[in-house]
């Protein structure tokens, strides 16, 4: 019967079309766009110069002369400038006994100033936010910081809030992962993520050397950014997320305990950084790259890597001495134009840079960020991105790789695609002209250079 035939065809066409439409619609909503980001710039009265650092260290009467020398040596050789910021409670002399108000004020200052600017710049009102994520590793009051923001900005009752804590310096990609997953279950969703660190309650006042490094490197900083999966906002977005890889090596005991918040022998809480940290970092880094490379590199480069690997193996089996210790390099620059490396310290940046085969130009943003802002923990990636943008390096279709390490031990990375030429100065606005400086050497080297002797 012709009629039945026709009905069957019509039904078939209708189902296949609606199926295809659904698949296409799903794909449209699976993109994660970065609308904008705002890095925190504290007020100038919070600048922590080397001299001020030295005063703070001297206030700790428990330290002996060798301890003092060690600390000052770290500060002077850290690659950190005189322009980094510290919390008010430390500058005002309350580092040994910060009050809850001090901690709240430090965090509020960062969150409120960045969020106010973010909402102002994007023109989006707080009432439109559907998902709110805060990650501040070492401060988690009750009610949570997300509730603090919901209260201040009068957000909706059905806003989905998530307060991540304890996840270390690599928590930024974790927050993005969370938002990305929520995006895949809902359409037209807007998310705001705030990433920062709390320094005030975590200043170490004891004498354990492994815990004093944190005092020398960590500085105040933070970032708020807005993500969406709404395709209608694509034209306003700065970047699009292409892939995200998380590697957790916590199963290994060394990895778990290499960066740990603990009490010292006197009962004072501090952040212990062990000597095995570089080795652990390398292992986590390798794991992450193994998963990241196939997603990021073009097929040609991957094929070349396989060929090089085989050739290397053959050569190694023939001439063991010459090739022992060398590894086959993958050229990440074939798949990525810009590298946002976590500013864990000068040594970390150099090590990661050489492992990826990067030159001075590629690691400059990370080095300069460390110099200007210090190690701002999870938000450091965004300051590095800000440097690149202020230097007008980010062009349409460029790919940006964010790579960070953190306690656990985790190595997390995410790849972004730039959607349009970016030119905002952001937090670097007033200082970008002075970068890169002629010399990164600490100006107090003359005054405190004696710590490097003996």
């Amino acid at each position, binding site marked *: 019967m012709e009629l039945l035939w026709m009905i069957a065809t019509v039904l078939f066409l209708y189902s296949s079309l609606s199926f295809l439409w*659904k698949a296409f619609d799903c794909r449209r909503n699976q993109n994660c766009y970065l609308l904008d980001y705002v890095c925190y710039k504290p007020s100038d009265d919070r600048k922590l110069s080397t001299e001020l650092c030295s005063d703070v260290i001297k206030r700790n009467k428990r330290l002996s002369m060798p301890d003092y020398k060690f600390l000052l040596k770290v500060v002077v050789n850290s690659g950190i400038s005189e322009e980094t910021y510290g919390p008010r409670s430390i500058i005002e002399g309350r580092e040994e006994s910060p009050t*809850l108000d001090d901690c709240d004020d430090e965090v509020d200052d960062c969150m409120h100033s960045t969020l106010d600017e973010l909402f102002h710049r994007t023109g989006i009102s707080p009432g439109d936010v559907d998902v709110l994520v805060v990650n501040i590793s070492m401060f988690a009051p009750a009610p*949570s910081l997300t509730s603090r923001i*919901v209260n201040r900005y009068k957000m909706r009752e*059905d806003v989905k809030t998530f307060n*991540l804590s304890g996840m270390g310096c690599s928590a930024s990609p974790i927050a993005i992962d969370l938002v990305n997953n929520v995006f895949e279950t809902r359409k037209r969703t807007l998310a705001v993520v705030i990433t920062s660190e709390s320094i005030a309650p975590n200043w170490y006042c004891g004498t354990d050397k492994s815990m004093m490094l944190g005092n020398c490197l960590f500085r105040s900083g933070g970032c708020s950014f807005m993500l969406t999966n709404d395709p209608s906002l694509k034209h306003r977005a700065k970047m699009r997320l292409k892939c995200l890889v998380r590697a957790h090596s916590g199963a290994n005991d060394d990895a778990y305990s290499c960066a740990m918040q603990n009490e010292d022998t006197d009962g004072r809480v501090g952040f212990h950084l062990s000597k095995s940290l570089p080795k652990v970092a390398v292992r986590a880094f390798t794991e992450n790259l193994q998963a990241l490379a196939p997603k990021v590199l073009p097929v040609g480069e991957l094929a070349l890597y396989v060929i090089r690997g085989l050739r290397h193996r053959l050569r190694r089996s023939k001439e063991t001495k010459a090739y022992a210790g060398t590894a086959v390099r993958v050229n990440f620059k074939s798949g990525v134009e810009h590298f946002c490396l976590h500013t864990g310290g000068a040594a970390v940046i150099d090590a990661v840079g050489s492992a990826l085969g990067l030159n001075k130009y590629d690691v400059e943003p990370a080095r300069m960020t460390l110099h200007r802002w210090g190690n701002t923990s999870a938000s450091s990636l965004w300051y590095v991105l800000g440097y690149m943008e202020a230097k007008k390096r980010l062009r349409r279709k460029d790919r940006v790789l964010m790579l960070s390490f953190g306690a656990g031990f985790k190595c997390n990375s995410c790849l972004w695609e730039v959607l349009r030429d970016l030119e905002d100065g952001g937090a670097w606005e007033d200082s970008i002209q002075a970068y890169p400086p002629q010399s990164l050497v600490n100006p107090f080297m003359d005054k405190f250079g004696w710590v490097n002797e003996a």
Partner: protein
Amino acid sequence: MPRAPLPEFSSSVRLKYVKLGYQHLVDNFVTFLSIPVMVAVGLELVRRGPQEIVGLWRALELDVIHILCSVFVIIFVATVYFMSRPRPVYLVEYACFKPPSNCRVPFSTFMEHTRLINSDEKSVQFQMRILERSGLGEETCLPPANHYIPPHPTMEASRAEAQLVIFSAIDDLIRKTGLKPKDIDILVVNCSLFSPTPSLSAMIINKYKLRSNIRSFNLSGMGCSAGLISIDLARDLLQVHPGSNALVISTEIITPNFYAGNQRAMLLPNCLFRMGAAAILLSNRRRDAGRAKYRLVHVVRTHKGADDRAYRCVYEEEDAEGHTGISLSKDLMAIAGEALKSNITTIGPLVLPMSEQLLFFLTLVARKLINPKRKPYIPDFKKAFEHLCIHAGGRAVIDELQKNLELSAEHVEASRMTLHRFGNTSSSSLWYELNYIESKGRMRRGDRVWQIGFGSGFKCNSAVWKCMRTVKTPIDGPWSECIHRYPVHIPEVVKL
């Protein structure tokens, strides 16, 4: 001559049956509609007789292609329909931490310790009065560090408590389900008041040697309702990743949160919060559907933080002497009631049968248009759920909810008994309550459970589960040794 007053319609027996009939009619509307159609078709079939039907079929002249096409279309449409539905999330099994008896804090121990630690007699008396009216029993437990005089709230002790409660719960879960740690794809941990670096999720990954590509999240500071926030997050993750399972850990670490001051509003948590943890295994794998206990139907989150009063009602702050503690405001009950109302407004349409929704809608219209003074209709949530698990925050919370939702004593029994046996274990209390219902042999296949959590923020979160298989007693869990003694009568005031 004055007329006799009209009889009370609402209490009339006849009206009750009318209401029952109305409910059945509206709830099964589609069935009622299809009955006459089915009857007509059936009669027609019988009238025509089998011979004529076969003849009709032959007359259609269907050949193989037509039949194949029709079958293909039906299968295709059915597949598209099933594929586009959200993945079901199953609760395979869960395990609650059973505190060891050497951690017990009977009233006498608590009062003795309080007297030795706290020199202010008024504070001691206040805490005694709280304990008398708290609804707690003699078997609640505090962590080992809190048994010291004064308590030893070091980071090491806090980690030790975390390891004790969390690892016991996970070991129990592994034993019950045969779960291999390397199989876990997602890990969500929520612990409000203790957040070390590396996180508790990293601690679990380290202990059980979980995979390096695990998706772990550590939520902190989110209060007593954080357990359902974790479930919500796990659900979202399971929607995105097929063939995965998720381990959710809900706990509260008591050690670092002992309040050493004298501010009354901040002494309450000392009296009510007790040790507890729950480990929950969720999965979206089809093969787990057979052995799963529950299926997650809805999760609804409500955040009242925009209102300053609600935001401040559970607040961590320092008192005049610099001691940190959690201050509970006097408005707590009223705010909890409001938060619940907001949550119900969202969850109502999702779970209530049509009859209740229609009534609610009609009375709402009547109030708005005809008579604003008319009492609002409170939907009968008992129609939508067989079991309720209300966060055992304290006796007052349970009383307030019982009044608000017009619940019977049996509905709130699980909450009251959990408060009595385990105290306020924060986010894990909902799981102890569920375990109580199962231990009592009340959980049957098809039963729907409503879990309601309240917490700082102020948040009210709900989860609705559907039971997939009857849970047979006796079950192995925290109630196994004492369930025969429950329910107990909890007096208003226990004289100390």
